[in-house]
């Protein structure tokens, strides 16, 4: 087990490092950002001067070496616009993104597991058919559009909830429901099919034959055995949730990492982009790492491999 953990931790470091390298070169290949920070009538000499101050005139490998050296020490440079520490700016936005992602996760689990269990238990009933149809539609709705519709319905038409911004539970409702929708659909579908598999098993039939009450049959025997694959899927989907949060944050002007990253991309404020990529790749890898360990913990076959 320890071997496995060490190996996977190394993998996380390599993955984050390679992701940063790829984005660094992509950014530099897209052109010299110096001119963007000066008024259009700046003279050529002044641009050259600034290029030297900002360090964009040196060979690419020197810039890369310096970037890696600083990044290892947690220094991603300063925002080219505000002059504040890039990593600091990103980290300051992290709690908001976590808030959004975890409340979306909470909502989706709260809805999808009971829904999936019930649909599997009442297989082929009208309830099951509606639930399955809803999951198919739920997986096809673009989240940003759902966000717009919710804003229109709850903020514009009925003025019940704020349309944008952050800071309170009320602000959290619309964005987290928007973000949760896709996961609700996915988790419900998965819970249902896993439950169906388990309900077909011999031990369930035996329990049924020996007269176990329906409630305990479904909850105690079937759901308990379905939870392992469900937990794995949920852990793996946390990353997708974080990615989806980026788009949802923009729709609702939610002050998270994703919105900061996209605005910095639009402004070509590259230190923030790199710091943001670092944090997201790191969190995403760690989440997958934890999912793997969880999985290895419950399934010894993986550990041996």
């Amino acid at each position: 087990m320890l071997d496995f953990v060490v190996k996977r931790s190394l993998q996380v470091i390599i993955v984050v490092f390679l992701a940063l390298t790829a984005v660094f070169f992509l950014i530099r290949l897209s052109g010299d950002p110096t001119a963007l920070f000066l008024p259009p009538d700046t003279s050529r000499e002044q641009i050259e001067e600034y290029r030297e101050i900002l360090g964009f005139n040196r060979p690419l490998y020197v810039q890369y070496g310096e970037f890696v050296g600083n990044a290892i020490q947690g220094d991603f440079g300063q925002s080219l616009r505000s002059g504040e520490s890039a990593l600091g700016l990103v980290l300051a936005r992290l709690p908001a993104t976590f808030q959004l992602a975890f409340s979306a996760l909470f909502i989706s689990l709260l809805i999808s597991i009971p829904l999936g269990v019930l649909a599997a238990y009442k297989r082929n009933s009208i309830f099951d058919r509606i639930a399955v149809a809803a999951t198919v539609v739920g997986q096809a709705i673009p989240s940003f559009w759902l966000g717009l519709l919710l804003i229109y319905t709850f903020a514009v038409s009925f003025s019940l909830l704020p349309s944008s911004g952050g800071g309170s539970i009320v602000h959290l409702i619309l964005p987290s429901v928007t973000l949760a929708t896709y996961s609700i659909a996915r988790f419900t579908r998965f819970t249902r099919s896993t439950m169906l598999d388990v309900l077909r098993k011999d031990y369930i039939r035996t329990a049924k034959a020996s007269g176990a009450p329906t409630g305990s049959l479904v909850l105690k025997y079937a759901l308990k055995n379905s939870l392992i694959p469900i937990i794995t899927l949920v852990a793996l989907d946390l990353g997708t949730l974080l990615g989806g949060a980026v788009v949802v944050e923009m729709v609702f002007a939610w002050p998270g990492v994703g919105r900061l990253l996209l605005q910095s991309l639009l402004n070509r404020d590259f230190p923030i982009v790199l710091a943001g990529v670092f944090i997201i790749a790191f969190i995403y890898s760690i989440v997958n790492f934890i999912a793997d360990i969880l999985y290895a913990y419950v399934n010894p076959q993986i550990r041996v491999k």
Partner: protein
Amino acid sequence: MTTKSEVNVVKGSTRRKSLRITNFFKKLLGNWSGFVGFVIIFLLIIISIFGKQIAPYDPMYTDFTKKLLPPLTEGHLLGTDQLGRDVLSRIIVGARVSVIIGLVTVLVAGTFGTIVGIISGYFRGWIDVVLMRIVDVQLSFPFILLVLVVSAITGTGLRNIIISLAIGGWVIFARVIRSEVLAIREKEFITACVATGVKRSHILFKHILPNLITPIIILGSLQIATYIIAEASISFLGFGVQPPAPAWGNMLSEGKDYIFSSWWLITFPGIAILITALGVNLFGDWLRDTLDPEFVE
């Protein structure tokens, strides 16, 4: 002069082929959701080809005296936008962007991913390790975010969007095809080929590739909706198709500024995306269930 037996062979093969096609439609007609998906895709392709002829108005024609008309007024079924352009016409003509993005991206990402998957799975060794490490790196980053970063850097325009989406999308093909190849190369008929000295290229193209067609088709059809929604999302965020060209994502982006007054601008293009993604997914699910129910993404 052709001999009798040759004629029979030719006849037999064409008959088998046409039988397969009627069989396909028979199966499709027997499945409600697969059939609906197929019809949606069919209509969408027709609309994307003949969009300009079908559209009741010129999608780019602006008329400030007719701006922000609600649906069903003055001959505008779905109303007009902030520049007086007909919403229905823009949705019809905008279908082409989504169809092109979906099809071309799946072609590019699928081809590249399949090649990588075959190389990785067939040759294994260090090249497999390197390629799969690259796949791991990419999978350690959310798909939509990767596409956004790449398209922000490469710039807008249909070609660049397709490149960004393909860069984000090839890894799934590589990973799935690799595991398929790993499974196929252990099969006895491949071992027999190797043992009898069949050329490697012959094994790859005549024996392995044909067995990959089913997983490629299934995976491809399931990925198209992802690409179409992703394109709409990045266009909505301003990194994709730029206005004034009509595309569903940027129509919603422009419409959101009028959310307080004109609900139709943020409603109908979204419904178009939803129906498209739904149709493609329904058809893809049906394909999977019919061709290979065990297929895992």
